[in-house]
């Protein structure tokens, strides 16, 4: 059975087991599913890297009748990143959602929600069918909302509600676009649509889907739901929510603008998207600066980092698509997404450890924790390196590629955003770093074991390793790219 099928079935089966089976067994099944899915993700990556792109025609039906799932470079890169984050979150949750630690409710619910979230992510990353993608992001949203609310406090519920309206509105806008596409072209398959003859409502469809996905990605000005939602959830959930969930809708956006209807892009629209990205970078960063709670800082950082991703559109899309640096910009943006996912998850997991010890995530309460838990502090620092975009990290590689494209295409304003955003990131991440490194630790509880501290460190290291060994991922991402991924610059 192909790795592709395994990857789709395993988390679903795990979720089903976690729902159906009584507590300890269900939890064990979930953990087994996590481990197996992680393995499947890696196998799939190897398959793509060495054997080409597996293609799964569901039920044996070819489009436009059936649904096709294809694992290309982008898919597997995101899938492996997801697997790493999920496995880490799972490890962290083993403790955080142990029956004794969390309530009965959360100890039961976390595992199926997590696995359902994972299933949805895999679907979104693999599917080539626009409606199937819709179902995927709906599943994603519902599972994510469940995770936001899992804390059970009034603020968490409010955050979940807020998230829900944005997610629902976004879904419906996206679906409206899908409806228009189907009405105009009679197919939902991305590759078939790419070869269609253009229709008048295509622009509206693209606009609807883009706007909807932006709301789900929490791009400025639709980001307001994100900080409370991500900051309110327990650490392992936050790690998934902040590290992975926005990447799903972003991946669909990439598919739309670069695979589905690259010809439909106009400079104005691309610029508008990047301007929103720019605003997100600035807004999110300043927002992070204004926070006194670490989780909120980290969450606002996600708002800013998401902004970066949207700079890719004018650099690799539209009139830029054919030029040699476009591939670089596109790959750079994906690098940014990947490294952000890893780093952000590492940060949330680290913060989770600190909260467990200090009892709060207020900066003033975290003073000196670096002495108590050097490994997590180091993980946080490494993640910060990635987010700021300093070498050698995946964040840097991505930033470099995007900036080079910006200069090469003469659109260097976006390079300024990129660089300025890095500085802002340094500014808002410096505050927690300085607090952590100050003297005077006041431990409320015993620090977690080294093995548990190592989890965020491994994730953060992965985000840095992405930059150190960037040649492999770069080549991987080129697999299945419609633009000839020319030898960069």
């Amino acid at each position, binding site marked *: 059975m192909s790795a592709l099928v395994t990857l789709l079935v395993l988390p679903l089966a795990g979720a089903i087991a976690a729902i159906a089976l009584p507590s300890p067994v269900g939890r064990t099944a979930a953990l087994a599913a996590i481990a197996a899915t992680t393995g499947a993700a890696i196998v799939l990556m190897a398959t793509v890297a060495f054997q080409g792109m597996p293609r799964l025609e569901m039920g044996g039906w070819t489009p436009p009748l059936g649904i096709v799932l294809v694992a290309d470079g982008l898919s597997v890169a995101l899938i492996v990143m997801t697997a790493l984050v999920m496995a880490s979150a799972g490890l962290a949750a083993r403790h955080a959602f142990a029956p004794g630690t969390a309530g009965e409710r959360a100890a039961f619910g976390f595992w199926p929600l997590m696995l359902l979230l994972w299933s949805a992510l895999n679907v979104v990353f693999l599917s080539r069918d626009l409606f199937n993608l819709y179902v995927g992001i709906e599943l994603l949203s519902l599972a994510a909302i469940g995770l936001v609310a899992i804390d059970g406090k009034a603020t968490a519920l409010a955050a979940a509600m*807020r998230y829900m*309206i*944005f997610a629902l*509105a*976004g879904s419906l*806008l996206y679906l409206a676009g899908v409806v228009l596409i189907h009405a105009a072209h009679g197919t939902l398959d991305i590759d078939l649509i790419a070869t269609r003859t253009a229709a008048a409502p295509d*622009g*509206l469809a*693209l*606009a*609807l889907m*883009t*706007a*909807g996905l*932006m*709301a789900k990605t929490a791009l400025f*000005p*639709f980001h*307001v739901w994100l900080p409370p939602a991500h900051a309110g959830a327990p650490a392992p959930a936050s790690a998934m929510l902040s590290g992975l969930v926005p990447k799903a809708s972003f991946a669909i956006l990439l598919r739309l603008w670069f695979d589905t209807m690259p010809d*439909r*892009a*106009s400079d*104005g*629209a691309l610029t*508008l998207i990047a301007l929103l990205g720019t605003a997100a970078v600035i*807004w999110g960063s*300043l*927002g992070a*600066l*204004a926070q006194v709670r670490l989780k909120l800082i980290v969450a606002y950082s996600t708002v800013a980092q998401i902004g970066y991703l949207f700079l890719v559109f004018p650099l690799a899309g539209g009139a830029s698509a054919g030029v040699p640096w476009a591939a670089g910009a596109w790959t750079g943006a994906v690098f940014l997404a990947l490294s952000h996912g890893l780093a952000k998850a590492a940060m949330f997991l680290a913060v989770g450890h600190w909260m467990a010890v200090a009892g709060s995530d207020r900066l003033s309460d975290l003073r000196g924790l670096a002495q108590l838990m050097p490994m997590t502090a180091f993980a946080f620092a490494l993640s910060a390196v990635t987010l700021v975009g300093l070498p050698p990290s995946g964040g840097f590689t991505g930033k470099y590629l995007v900036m080079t494209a910006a200069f090469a295409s003469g659109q260097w304003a976006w390079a300024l955003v990129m660089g300025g955003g890095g500085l802002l990131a340094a*500014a808002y991440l410096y505050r927690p770093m300085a607090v952590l490194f100050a003297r005077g630790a006041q431990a409320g509880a015993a620090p977690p074991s080294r093995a548990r501290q190592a989890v965020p460190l491994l994730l953060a290291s992965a985000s840095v390793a992405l930059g150190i060994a960037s040649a492999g991922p770069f080549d991987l991402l080129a697999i299945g790219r419609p633009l000839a991924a020319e030898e960069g610059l």
Partner: protein
Amino acid sequence: MMIWTGPLLPLAALVWPFLLAALTALPAFRGRAVRLLPFAPLPALWLAVAGVEGVTTAPGLLLGVTLGLDAARRLLMGMTAALWLIAGLAAQPMAGKPHTAVFSGFWCLTLTGNIGVFLALDVVTFYVAFAAVSLAAWFLVVHDRTEVALRAGRVYIVTALAGEVSLLVGLLIGAAAAGGVDIEGVRIALGASDAGPVAVALLVTGFGIKVGLVPLHVWLPLAHPAAPVPASAVLSGAIVKAGLFGMILFLPDGAFGSVLMALGLAGAFGAALWGLTQSNPKAVLAYSTVSQMGLMVMLVGAGGAARETVPFLALHHGFAKGALFLLVGAMLAASDRRHRMLCLAFAAAVSASVAGFPFTGGALAKAAVKPGLTDAATLALSLSSVATSIILVWFLFRLWLLPNAGKTATHWPLRLSLPVVAGGLAFAGPWLFWQSWTGHDFVYALAMKPVIDALWPVAVALPPALALLRWSLPQRPPGDLLLLLQGWGTLSIPMPDLSLRWAGGRRLFDALALAIARAERGLLRWSLSSTLLPVLVLAMLALLA
């Protein structure tokens, strides 16, 4: 790679005192470091006596060291080495006193530099040697660590450094102009190049500070008296000659001639006059040195044959001034009247020589110079002898007025015999080298005219000098021009911190963050941000259409 090529002795003459300087730092030698001093100048002395052919190079040292000797170098180096030897012996009574290890170490370093100045054939070595002699000598000046010595040290180091810097810049321009570091080449290039005058001005400044050229001399009357007697002897006798020799080496013939002559004469007369306001015999001697050196600078400025003979003059002055300073030391150590008389007598004899009394070395030296001078310059020279005579009489007077030591110091014979030897050399040296240096026969020196020329200034000088003993001028502390500056006090200039200020930026940042937070609350209202959703759809539709 060869460490050196050519004869070893010149290199040894430099390295040896340097090594001794290093030795003084060793604990084993600390207590008796002074004992090493007489040994330091021996290779140099040997070198001067024996002479050497060819050029020594040490390509790996510094920027490539080249050493060599010619007549002038040999003469001056010989004088210097001999004087250092004598002074080194004279320093022996210091043994066992505090800080003598430091003193000895820097003594040897100064000596190294002093010898090096005469041996160097390239600009860099010369500069290094010159810097060594200038700066290491600072420790000799401040050795006593009295308030006076320390003040003198401050003035000394400031001026010496200023001199060092202008020298360096001047030499750099010269080397760049010459395209090499050969001293000869640099001198020629300085005469020819556009930048020459600047460089020469800088060199005159640099060397002028060392020789005590008015108005750069201010340090000298402070420093020379402040140092211990043996140090004063080498300072005034040998070290100043380094500057003089620098001028001879580097200044193109005739460059800045009139300026040098004017300044030299100003020094020759002005210093002699101001010296009369001093009560410390060492200060008087120091002013005398300024005066004498002014005279020699004048000769350098005069150029031509006169300039060629300056080393000969310097030979005499070196020994003589060394002797006089040492005699001050002897006088300070003398307790009974007979000893004091003896000191005074010897001092008078040496003074007579400096004043150019006939048949003395000084007379000979001046006689050697005169053929190369214009009449006016000759007259100036003679008049300067008058001034010299007056100030030396004043010196003898002040010497005699020194207090009685009370009890005879140790090493009394040594203390007296060393200046006698130096004085003797001052007498004998010019005779010894007369023929080989001037090319004249002895008869020339013994002829009537030179004798009269030498005699009358002394004769003219005696009455006013004796009058001065009766009606002395108001006494002033040493330092003349420096006294004018003292009113300025310490300069304190408030300086802003140029580094970028972030504080303002930080406030701006905070304000911005606050504004954002406020706007965020507005945006948090779903009705606002969600209205933007269809608006965005429409905007994008418009842009995509």
